[in-house]
């Protein structure tokens, strides 16, 4: 992951966005797509561009589950919280993953090696119970398979 972007880079990235045009979310999404997260500095740059306050920008950032305020981990397990997964042992998988990774939901390790995140159902329920490993579906999981996956990710992320 690149170093934290400078204010100048951030201002250039958000230069085209305007307030009262529905641009706050698109701008935040563009920042996160580019840098992987929305830093405090990014919120300040965006607030200035939109003619509003950093507090309003932070209000939106903290409201939506998808925005990160620190750089993303190198490897990430997103756990599907949907009902089809739940009915097939999804919650036991969450419990096992949390303990294996030593991370709470929406937490990541201090060294940025791996993260664990809550995901919402996207309707691929025939694969339940599932997680997304770095964006790829790993479906039809058993708890034991989830534990093995988490251990592998931790080893990978550490190296």
């Amino acid at each position, binding site marked *: 992951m690149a170093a934290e972007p400078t204010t100048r880079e951030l201002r250039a990235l958000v230069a085209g966005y305007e307030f009262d045009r529905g641009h706050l979310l698109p701008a935040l999404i563009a920042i996160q797509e580019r840098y992987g997260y929305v830093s405090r500095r990014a919120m300040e740059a965006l607030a200035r561009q939109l003619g509003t306050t950093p507090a309003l920008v932070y209000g*939106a950032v903290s409201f939506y589950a998808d925005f990160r305020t620190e750089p993303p981990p190198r490897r990430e397990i997103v756990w599907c919280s949907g009902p089809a997964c739940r009915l097939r042992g999804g919650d036991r998988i969450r*419990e096992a993953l949390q303990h294996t990774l030593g991370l709470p939901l929406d937490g990541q390790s201090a060294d940025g090696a791996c993260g664990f995140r809550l995901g919402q159902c996207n309707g691929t329920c*025939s694969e339940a119970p599932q997680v997304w490993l770095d964006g790829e579906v790993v479906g039809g999981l058993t708890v034991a398979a989830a534990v093995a996956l988490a251990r592998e990710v931790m080893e990978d992320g550490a190296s």
Partner: protein
Amino acid sequence: MNDRFAAIAAGARERRDASRSSGRPRIALCLDTSSRARGGEATLAALREAVAARGLDVEIATTGSWGFCWLEPTVSVRSAAGSRTVLYHSLTPDRVEEFLRAVIVEAGEFPELALGVVEGPATDRIGLLRDHPFMRGQVRRLMANCGRIDPASIDDALANRAYEGFVTALDMEPAAIIELMLESGLGGRGGGGFPAGRKWDFLRNATADPRYLVCNADEGDPGAWVNRILMEGDPHLIVEGMLIAALATHAVEGYVYIRHEYPLAIERMNEAVRQARERGLLGEDILGSGKTFDLVVFTGAGSYVCGEETGLINSIDGYRGMPRIRPPFPAQAGLWNLPTNVNNVETYANAPLILREGAAWWSSVSDDDAKGTKMFTFSGAVNQSGCVEIPFGLSVRELLERYGGGVPGGVPLKGYQPGGPLSGILPAAEADLPLTLAPFRERGMFLGSGGIVFFDETASVVDLCTYFLGFAEDESCGRCTTCFQGTQRAVEILRRIASGGGRETDLDKLGDLIQTMIWSNCLHGQFAPTTVKLALREFRSEFETLIREKRDPTRSLPGMIAYEITNPTAPALAGAAAVCPTAAIVADGAGHAIVDELCIRCDACREVAPEAIAIRDRFA
């Protein structure tokens, strides 16, 4: 008929016919999100590689979903003569070689994986697709093009009658379009069922300009993916529906608000909008009519309450997606406080069919009070998790048996949730209810947007309540104390009951909370406790057993069970000890023992050593 449109459509048909009569066979792989989750991209890569390696002259295309989500990747093959198409399922990369040999090299068929003949006569070994048990009884109108066309190609859509309904509407007065919508009886498909024509009429009669349309494609109900199927399978149908609404309401700009969990739908809709603009179907002076309308595809960022129309409007406006206090209603003060109409994806998608085929045709599909067809997805305790389009009125049980393939393992059905985490749950005894609006409304719940979740006797209703209330708590916007504190308090009480600490007074407390939460501003808080309300009515004994006997009949609640080793010297226990995330299985003399304080009841050990480990009641 509009001359410009006639030329555009004729061009598209010519290109389609040229592909058909090229003498090349066509392989079309479904590559929607469900197919991707089941390895669709690997199959596509394998197909391309094998075709190149063998030097075969084949057109390879991708499509949206036919609804057979549990059998992806599905693949249709059109013969070289262009007159016969067969649909196959579960084509994994390792089967690609033999598949291609059969269907292309030998120009034959592959009955083992065949679902049915899409086009052409049936044979002894492959029946017609429409006679497939999963297709029988379905009426594919909204989904008519899903699976058949390349959703990234406006030519494919135009050759299959896209935008014809809009062109019809171009020659009509706004009032006449609304009259037709009212005549059809189309109700909002997001769950409310409010007549779409009336909603459009509110916007038509608005006094301020500019005015806006919003397509609610937030589809946040876990277990519902009907909108995703449409956006990924036939995005132009939604563009066209919004164009018709724009003509009827004088709206000049529209927003399609799609949740970020649907990246492919976002891509498809963006592509469709770009292509429609290129052909002069969006933008200024559409088809030379002097009318202006354009669309923005807007990506959400993870918030369930943004599916509530005023929360969605705040989200586009650039604020926290908190539902507003109404009135004013969106038709008076919506986006940027200007008049706005919000409809669900499926609502807009019906408009082209009504304009093209007429209200009488559209509403004659069933004699149910709710008119037209409805798409449903089903998941949970089903053998087949997929998507269908059927007339209103089929019973829930028929949906489960006929399309969902019944409950796996012959376990009895315990109940179901008809429409999202706020809609509530009903017991199996109520599975004969017809899938339409009235019976659910009568029970204080709603049919919702089309995602049905089934659960069997192994599921704990208290766990389901904890899950759905926990979801509502997580997603509460924080405006109303009744909602954000009510859900929190309910979850606390439910967790207490689920872990053996329930009190006799807890059920009354939950009852009080349910009453109080009704006073929340929006549907989220008002309906968040529906699951608990219905569970207390329909499954009360389960709560009582937990509280009074400290026993969970399903033996699934982690707080109510303990694990014990029944055969300490079983060799499999070494593997169980190795997999345990908390190292709760320790060596004990010649065998193994479980340290109860460390055990998190995740069941990993029992998966590895089922013969040596058992679950017992914790408080027995």
